[in-house]
Each structure stands twice: as C-alpha cells, then as structure tokens.
C-alpha cells in the first residue's frame, strides 16, 4: 500500500532521479517530504528552494549538468515555474515536473480538480512549445508514469509533466514496484550535450537565445518535428468496453475512475457505454479518438472543470460524432449517479 504522491516520489527514485528541488504547497507536500527522507539514503540531493521560480531554475541547472532531476508543485507554484519550463523547452533540456493540481484561479482551494488541463497541454509558458504530459488514474500509474516521464523527457530533451490531483495524491492503493534498483542498473541514455566541463572535447553551450537571421524559425520547426515524432511514437491511452459501445465517454485521471463506476451502472441497465481514457494528454490521442468516434458516433466528455479536454476531443472527432460535455469544476465531484444520469441524457 502506498499513497499516490509517494508513488510519484518513489517512481522518480526508481527512474534514477537523484536531484529534487521544490517549494512547499498543498496538496503536493507528500512528495518533497518523502524525498527529503529518501533521497539522502540513495546518495541523492534534496533541496528546498526559496521559491518555485528558484526550484525550476535549479532543476534547469542540474539538467544541463546531465542529471535526472525533478520538481513538484501545484497551481500558483506551477504558474511561477512556467518561465523556467519554457526555457527548458527552448534549451532542449529534460526535466520532470510532478503537478498535483489545486483549484484556481488565484489561491482557490486545495480540493481535486482538472482545471489545469489547458495550462499543462498548451505549453503553459511563452513560445511555440509543448510539454509532454501524462495523466495517471491510479497509484500504480503515479509510479509507472513518473518513470515513463523521465524516459520520454530524456528521449525528446523536453520537459515532462505528470498531472494528478488531490484524490490521486492522497489515495492509498496496493502497488507493485519491486526493489529499488541501484543507480548503475538503471537504463539511462547518454547525454553528450551535457555541461560537464570541456575536458577532452570542445566547449559546449546550453542556451535558448538565437538572434541570428532566421535561426529561431529553424529552431521552432525543429521543436515541431520533435512533437510530431512524439505524437507518432509515444501517445498513450486506454480503451475499455468500446467494442460494442453506442456511447463513448472520454475522461482522464481521477475523474475516469468515477466514470467507470457510472459505466458499470449503465451496463447493468443494458446501456452499451465504453471509455476512452487518454493517458498522455499531450500528445492527445487524437487518432484513437477519431477512429473510435467513426464507429461510435456519440461521445460524452466528462471532466472536473468547465470544459477543457472537450476541445481536443472535438478537434479529434472533427464532426464525425456528436460531442456532449459534463463537467464539475471547482472541487465538485461527479458521482456515479450523476454520470449515469448524463449517460441517459445523451444515449
């Protein structure tokens, strides 16, 4: 049994992350608390920074120096990190950001929400870039997707976010994680671009400033090509009971768990309902949603917000199906009964 937030922290250790920089904010404090205790045991460095701004920049420095490194935060803290995240993307540096959402805007509240889907999947900071974004729906996935986030972040040299919420962060579930591997046994890519001192090679540079004529256009297209490759090779989703479905629900994260209970109730009444759950929310599983919607021409999107992912669903479906939306923002939770009622409305 493990808490969701701790599963993220343990996932990082299993991925070979030995550096963490962060600043306290509810509801993600279990992550720094766990790592402040566990990282020193594996020879790692835990540093509580003076702010989220400082912590994302410490992450940038450690990443440029070649290390696997993580930070974590929530709402206002992630907003503060956005300049640094943009610099990571611009400098083509990896780095993992664990995001346990809280309600916004402003200081908002600390209950579970999916109001940050838009911020996370749209890049979030300035410039023409995206962050890789994975959305777990169980404690097991908090662990495994954190590990995957490190691999993808290194593979694409681009920041990666694991997006969860207070439900997932606080939830305790059995997990299978195995023994902590020794650092030497963890498979990590070589980083010939890292700043290690110019010993036996030419001096290297990590930067995001390109002032030469047309240089930035080339750089932006280079990033674009990376995101296209990411879409092709690393889009993740789960399909449940879609084979015979007349209605497809699209839902992610903790919300999809409540949706599953609603689907069970609907199935008991003979309603053929299935679920498509995006696991990577950037890249969004456009292709999968489009294909599924060709056969099932009714789609219901359920989110804990006023309607954010539904826009990606609409673009993916491209008018091949009717897209309905049910949302509960600001900490409201859709109960299985609410979901059943919505299913009946659009079925």
């Amino acid at each position: 049994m493990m808490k969701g937030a701790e599963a993220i922290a343990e996932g990082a250790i299993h991925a070979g992350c030995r550096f963490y920089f962060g600043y306290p904010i509810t509801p993600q404090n279990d992550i720094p608390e766990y790592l402040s205790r566990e990282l020193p045991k594996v020879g790692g460095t835990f540093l509580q920074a003076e702010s989220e701004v400082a912590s994302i920049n410490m992450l940038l420095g450690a990443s440029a120096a070649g290390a696997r490194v993580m930070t974590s935060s929530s709402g206002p803290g992630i907003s503060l990190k956005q300049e640094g995240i943009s610099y990571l993307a611009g400098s083509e540096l990896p780095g993992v950001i664990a995001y346990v959402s809280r309600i916004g805007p402003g200081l908002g509240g600390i209950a579970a929400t999916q109001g940050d889907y838009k911020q996370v999947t749209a890049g979030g900071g300035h410039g023409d870039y995206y962050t890789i974004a994975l959305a777990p729906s169980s404690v097991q996935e908090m662990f495994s997707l954190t590990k995957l986030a490190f691999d993808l972040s290194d593979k694409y040299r681009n920041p990666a976010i694991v997006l969860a919420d207070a439900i997932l962060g606080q939830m305790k579930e059995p997990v299978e994680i195995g023994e902590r591997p020794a650092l030497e046994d963890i498979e990590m890519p070589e980083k010939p671009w890292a700043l290690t001192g110019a010993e036996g090679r030419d001096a290297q540079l990590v930067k995001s400033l390109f002032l030469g004529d047309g240089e930035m256009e080339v750089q932006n297209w280079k990033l674009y090509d990376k995101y296209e490759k990411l879409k092709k090779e690393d889009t993740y989703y789960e399909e449940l009971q879609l084979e015979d479905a007349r209605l497809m629900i699209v839902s992610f994260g903790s919300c999809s768990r409540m949706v599953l209970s609603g689907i069970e109730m609907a199935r008991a009444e003979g309603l053929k309902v299935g679920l498509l759950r995006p696991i990577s929310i950037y890249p969004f599983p456009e292709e999968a949603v489009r294909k599924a919607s060709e056969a099932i021409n009714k789609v219901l999107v359920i989110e804990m917000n006023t309607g954010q992912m539904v826009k990606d669903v609409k673009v993916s479906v491209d008018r091949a199906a009717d897209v309905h939306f049910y949302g509960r923002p600001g900490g409201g939770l859709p109960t299985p009964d609410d979901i059943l009622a919505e299913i009946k409305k659009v079925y």
Partner: protein
Amino acid sequence: MTTEAKDKPKKVYGRPESLKDVGFHFCPGCNHGNVHKMVAEAIDEFGVREKTIGVAGVGCGVFLYNYIDIDVLEAPHGRACAEATGVSRVHPDHVVFTYQGDGDLAAIGIAETIHAANRGEHITVLFVNNTVYGMTGGQMAPTTLLGQKTTTSPYGREFMGEGYPIKMAEMLATLEGTAFVARVACNTPKNIMAAKRAIKKAFKMQIDKMGFTFVEILSACPTNWGMDAVTANKRVEEEMIPYFPLGILKERTTADYL
C-alpha cells in the same frame, strides 16, 4: 651560441588561453571586456578550464560563451544563482561561476542571489555593477545612484519613490554562507590589478571549498551614461566609488563554518 631566448622580451601582457581569439561586441569603454579577460586569466591561472562551468545571466554579459572557451549555461534573467546551484550540486568538484549585471542580480534575481549565498553554495558570483540596465537601453537599476538620470528616471533617481541604490556586497557580507565578498573597479590600472586579485581569490576560495564567493565590479557603461570612455571612468571614480567603497568586505581564512 644563440642569444635569442635571452633577448626575447618577457611576456607581461597577452591573451589568456581561455579567451577566444575574437573581438568583443561591447561598446568602446565598456568594462565587460576587462572582466571577461580577468575571468579567463583566473581560469588559466588555476588550470581549471576543463572543469569550469559558467552561467551567463541575461544582460550585456549573456554572450560570455562567445568569448570564454568553457562550458556555459545561459540562465533566464535573474536566475543564474539558481542554475549555478543546480550545476554545482551535480558537479561538486567543478568550478562554477555566474556572470551577472545589476538588473539581473540585484533586481529580478535578488532572492536567488541571497539564498544561494546563504546556503553557502560553492560558486563564484561576478557582479558587474554599471548602475543601469545596459542591454535593454539604460533603464534605472537598483544600483542607480541618487540623482542619476536614466531612460526610466528622466528627472534623476529620487529616494522618495525609487529608494536608495542597493549595496549588494555589504548586504551579502552579513550572511554566514559567504566566504569572500569584495568590491572592485576597472577605472584605473591600480584598480584593475586589485580586481584581478579579487577575482582570482574568489576562484581560489571556491576551489578550496570555502563557500560562496562574491565580487562586485564597478563598471562603466559609457553608452547608456551618454559619456565617452574617459569621462565614464571619471564618473566611476568620482560618483560610484564614494557611494560603493572598494575593498574586501569579508574573507574567511579557514573553513570555519564547518
């Protein structure tokens, strides 16, 4: 027998090995070039070119990497001390330094600076104080002197509303984490010699793991001061040094923080 070797003049001035053979883009009379050269000399003196990582702040010094032949990371504006913390934590045996202007270090990045100093990060911070935002066109900086006219203090900086110029070296010297704090200038040959010594000392103390080392370098920005180089140097002497006194403010002799 040849007398060649004997007759050859002794080399007293030359380009440091770590300094690339390219011309600086700085304006005439700008002291950034002097400071770059001193940094390269310090790196050569200790033979640490291959284990030095520089962190360039955003300002006229951002192109550090075009001139000094070492690994360089470009930090976002103000954050160099945070980047340097990350680099130095990953490579504790390397020499890590930041190169920052007064807007970068004393305005937007003051929190990162103070906390890196307070943690006693094993980094060297080179702080080029020219009393203006050079790169963006000469706006008011936290170090702009009272009465000084800049593009955003057209009537002269006033205490009421704009505050007093910040003395970074004095502030940082009060922190337990700082091992070495000095303020130097580049306006006279004598001051340049003292500046070189201070920068070398700062690197040496970092290499000796003494803690955070900080050198504030009073510098001329003739372009944004609207002066020629000679007048700008005079201003450093007559206006800056009286307010920002030169000297070593703090020097730890042993790792007594342990």
